[in-house]
């Protein structure tokens, strides 16, 4: 019996595998999108924190420069530490901005491929599954018709 219906069993197995594949890959695409959203949010948090830090650093640097301008020439005020901090924060902020731009560009390209794949999962795969169901039903019907004669 198993041998006679091995093709039908195999097709049912393939049908089940396609359904599992559709669900599992939907989860994969959702996790990919989640990761993209999380990284964008993380970069924005870092940028926001750095902007606040930079603003504070710039204010401290300006205050230091004011003190330096009014300081006794024999007792100069050194603002180089503030200048370095502002420079470093500016560079880090610029680095984050560049990463944000790059991610936006790559995500834009990715969205085309992801859209096609999502369409395949939502439309093409269910059609394939329905096609297999029809083939299985047709094979089963043919076997039922032939069975009495055998």
């Amino acid at each position, binding site marked *: 019996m198993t041998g006679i219906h*091995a*093709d039908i*069993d*195999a*097709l049912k*197995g*393939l049908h*089940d*595998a*396609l359904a*599992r*594949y559709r669900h*599992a*890959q939907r*989860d*994969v*695409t959702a*996790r*990919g999108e989640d*990761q*993209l959203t999380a*990284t964008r949010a*993380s*970069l924005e948090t*870092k940028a926001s924190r750095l902007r606040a830090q930079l603003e504070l650093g710039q204010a401290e640097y300006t205050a230091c420069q004011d003190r330096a301008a009014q300081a006794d020439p024999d007792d100069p005020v050194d603002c180089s530490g503030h200048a370095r901090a502002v420079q470093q924060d500016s560079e*880090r902020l610029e*680095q*984050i901005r560049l*990463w944000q731009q*790059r*991610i936006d560009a*790559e*995500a834009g*390209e*990715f969205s085309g*491929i*992801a859209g*096609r*794949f999502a369409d*395949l999962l939502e439309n*093409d*795969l269910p059609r*394939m599954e329905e*096609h*297999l169901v029809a*083939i299985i039903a047709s094979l089963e019907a043919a076997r039922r018709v032939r069975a009495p004669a055998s």
Partner: protein
Amino acid sequence: MISRPEQDGDQQLRLLGDAWDKAAEHWRDGPARQFGTAQLTPLLQESRSYLEALRKLMDLLETAERETEG
């Protein structure tokens, strides 16, 4: 350690390939060939393209997080 989504996607792709190989052992008529050529092969190709693009994007996101730490 949580696996990356494209790695799980690759695993699912392998499982589907195995299921097709198993089905193809017993299902070898014209409709089988038609199904394999016209439907399953494009699905597998499109899946590979997507998963490769996803891998590159996940690499990029990891690098961006790493490079902007501290």
